[in-house]
């Protein structure tokens, strides 16, 4: 039963086996003279291109419409998705993506709108941005917002730029060059800080998985520009010393940047503004459920405290009576400048607002509470068979285990994850956060029914029992029932092949 059908009797000429279909790259099925789009050839065209007309072939393959449909439908069936099953990737927040969001984002009045058409002809779009801003500012208890950052990491740059602009205004930009970052932070935090010329200084978390006031005080000095703290943190825990930490950092002349990747645990329950936050990005695709699309686009608006508000980037919205105006140039003001062309991920704003309005303030709080409830339910149901790095304590919306429960079984964390694929699940996040050996971070979100959670628990318990019984092949040879078995990542990196070529 566990043996892969390698027997030639199971091989097929086409490579297809029932619904398990192979699909070659477009370059092997398309032709440069085939097109799936009918475009009329313009009559008597005398180009006005100077000497710059393209002469040689490009080599781009074309597919007729039926061929294209089949190609991409077949490819789609080689992907796992949240619509197909539980997707418990910790820190990634794979929750249900309502299709209403997609429908409204495609209304002609939104989708067919140019960012540079006269603002008088786009007042509805500006009103939508104003309404989204009102929700995000109220939910976070903050003073100002930048909608333009394109993703969470872009939001980090935005927040740090505002902090540096504020330091410049104070005349301290040259002396405050250190950003405190916990070891468990997302890798984007130190990367963003370094990109802007800050030096990351690591803060250690305590044995309880959170940062203590003392640990922060020890690293504070006149050279500190800011602290970047994720709360709830990447270990699934609430940084309970947050208020004291914020006070200490402020007293030392620094700012508090909060990585808001995990805001979905507390939206509607507690406000970052009350925690002492000066700047925080919100991952709209996570907390407000815009589809992740295989890895993007994201959207990372940043909210600011009163102290940082004057430095917010352009463009920003101004209400002038009945009219909304987008301020696109910051000349003479304190705005630190522009982060990207145009006004941000507007299509994502539409989706996020549809989600927000569907929930209402009451529903958003319920969603947060359900996400925390589900994670703790998994923790309680698995704590006798899996191990928690910081002891058995309440978690937020994700629960962190480590791999010590696999010790002596011959099964590695990666093998365990791959075996989950054969059970029909997307594995949890593994090997993150890096501070925990063999980390397994599970985030069920609020989208799962109790039945779904119970089945997931039963599956994990069965896998664990199997590992303990010594059935290692179930793990080391997994996955068997995926479109591909384990892929040779070392070979891919050693001799990179990044584009198709003939032969």
């Amino acid at each position, binding site marked *: 039963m566990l043996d892969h059908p390698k027997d030639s009797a199971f091989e097929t000429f086409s490579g297809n086996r029932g619904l398990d279909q192979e699909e070659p790259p477009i370059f092997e099925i398309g032709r440069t003279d085939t097109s799936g789009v009918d*475009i009329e050839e313009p009559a008597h065209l005398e180009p006005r291109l100077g000497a710059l007309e393209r002469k040689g072939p490009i*080599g781009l393959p074309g597919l007729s419409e039926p061929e294209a449909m089949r190609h991409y439908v077949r490819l789609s069936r080689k992907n796992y998705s949240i*619509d197909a099953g539980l997707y418990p990737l910790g820190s990634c927040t794979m929750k249900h*993506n309502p299709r209403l969001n997609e429908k409204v984002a495609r209304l002609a009045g939104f989708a067919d709108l140019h960012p540079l058409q006269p603002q008088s002809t786009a007042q509805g779009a500006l009103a939508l941005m104003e309404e989204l801003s009102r929700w995000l500012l109220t939910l976070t208890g903050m003073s100002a917002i930048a909608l333009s950052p394109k993703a969470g990491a872009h939001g980090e740059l935005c927040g740090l730029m505002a902090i540096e602009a504020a330091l410049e205004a104070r005349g301290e930009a040259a002396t405050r060059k250190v950003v405190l970052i916990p070891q468990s932070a997302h890798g984007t935090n130190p990367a963003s800080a370094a990109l802007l010329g800050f030096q990351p200084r690591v803060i250690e978390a305590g044995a309880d998985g959170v940062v203590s006031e003392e640990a922060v005080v020890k690293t504070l000095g006149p050279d500190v520009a800011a602290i970047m703290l994720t709360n709830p943190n990447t270990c699934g825990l609430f940084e309970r010393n947050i208020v004291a930490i914020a006070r200490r950092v402020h007293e030392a002349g620094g700012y508090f940047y909060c990585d808001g990747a995990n805001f979905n645990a507390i939206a509607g329950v507690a406000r970052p503004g009350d925690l002492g936050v000066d700047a925080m990005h919100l991952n709209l695709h996570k907390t407000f459920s815009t589809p992740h699309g295989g890895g993007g686009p994201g959207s990372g608006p940043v909210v600011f405290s009163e102290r940082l508000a004057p430095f917010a980037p352009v463009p920003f919205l101004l209400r002038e009576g009945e009219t909304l105006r987008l301020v696109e140039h910051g000349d003479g003001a304190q705005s630190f400048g522009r982060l990207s062309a145009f006004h941000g991920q507007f299509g*994502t704003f539409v989706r996020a607002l549809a989600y927000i309005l569907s929930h209402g*303030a009451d529903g958003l709080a319920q969603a947060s509470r359900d996400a925390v409830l589900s994670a*703790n339910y998994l923790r309680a149901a698995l704590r006798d068979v899996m191990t928690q790095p910081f002891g058995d304590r309440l978690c937020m919306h994700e629960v962190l285990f480590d791999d010590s429960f696999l010790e002596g079984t011959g099964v590695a964390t990666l093998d365990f994850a791959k075996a989950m694929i054969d059970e029909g699940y997307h594995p949890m996040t593994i090997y993150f956060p890096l501070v925990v050996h063999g980390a397994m971070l599970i985030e069920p979100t609020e989208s799962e029914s109790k039945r779904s959670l119970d089945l997931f628990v039963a599956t994990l318990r069965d896998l664990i029992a199997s590992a303990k019984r010594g059935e290692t092949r179930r793990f080391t040879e997994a996955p068997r029932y995926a479109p591909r078995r384990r*892929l040779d990542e070392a070979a891919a990196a050693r001799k990179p092949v990044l584009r198709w070529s003939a032969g």
Partner: protein
Amino acid sequence: MRYLPLTDVDRKDMRDAIGVADFAALYADVPSELLLDRPLDLPRAKSEMEVERLLSAMAKRNLSAASAPFFIGAGAYRHHIPASVDHLIQRSEFLTSYTPYQPEISQGTLQYLFEFQTQVAMLTGMEIANASMYDGSTACAEAALMAHRITKRRKAILSGGLHPHYADVLRTISHFAGDEIVALAPDVRAREDIASAIDDSVSCVIVQTPDVFGNLRDLTPIAEACHRHGALLVAVFTEVVSLGLLKSPGEMGADIVVGEGQSLGNPLSFGGPYLGLLATRHSYLRQTPGRLIGETVDADGRRGYVATLSAREQHIRRDKATSNICTNSNLCALAFSIHLSLLGEAGLRRLARANHASAIDLVDRLAGVAGVETLNESFFNEFTLRVPGDAARLVEAMAEQGVLAGVPVSRLLPQAGLDDLLIVASTEVDTVEDREAFVAAMRGAL
């Protein structure tokens, strides 16, 4: 709440299993004074019908490109998107999947990104491309940072034909990263002398073609000047359809090519989400930002794809990473790739010719409008007009007649004193009637 499966009975059972009495107990780690003890001043949940009604009302307050003769470009372009593109990207397995962390069950995403990388490399005439960036402007900033890493110099020269938003983004990032920018004056007629601005301290020269005013630029002499001084040429485009008809930046000697890919498969959507394209030479692979997909084999020897060379990336290298970028514009890249596969080479070339023909027709019609002058000697689907008086006021007046006419240069460069310039784009979507309406509205408004 229709999106939340748990019932109150479930919630109670689950709390019992955990051993907590109520929700407040679940949040025991949050200091109690921080827990909201009152409802926020925000509305309560709405039904699907109510949300749809509310958002439709907002959408109706906008004048959409679909309902007016439309000639706006300057970095974002309106093209026809085949119905199958949007259908395919809405398939659950594409729309609702995540970053391909588990390649065995993400082959769909990985294979189309591999195909996308190849298409972008072919189009730009470069050896490799990454799996998309946030948008053209941020990709342009990443290209400058990449050139700084490669040359170990920190000074970028920006052509005066570069989209002013792109220049602004570069200014912002350079200011904070401590890099130097030399921005040449707005170059309406593409006559600037870039070569003489290059010396041995320059890391890269950033030139757009077609430029923001619609002029086509031969990059070859600029590339030669760059290479003489050990600098890199970063070529930028905002209209990818132009590559169907024009010499590729690679052919002209570019070292890094960046651009906006929105034109293929992606709606205007008031400015985003779009997708940045980035292509370069194979030798700069390890300095390339963003995601890269590579081909490999699985345990059974079958061809497959993985995200690769992640040792450059933030999740491994943290503060030593080549960039802080974590996400990409994956779904937009899929739309781009599907649209381009449907077009194929033959279709892309026809689409490009149709765009060029529309623009030529509009330019020729405008030649008969007194006081209006087209400034371009060569162009693709966009050009710049000098109009009598204030272009922004003209655009407003034409909008009142139901024609969306173009982008006044003063909107992009308010301090440049170029208030009588108007950037106009014409694509395959415009009909002869639309172009007639444009000319009539302009005559009426002047």
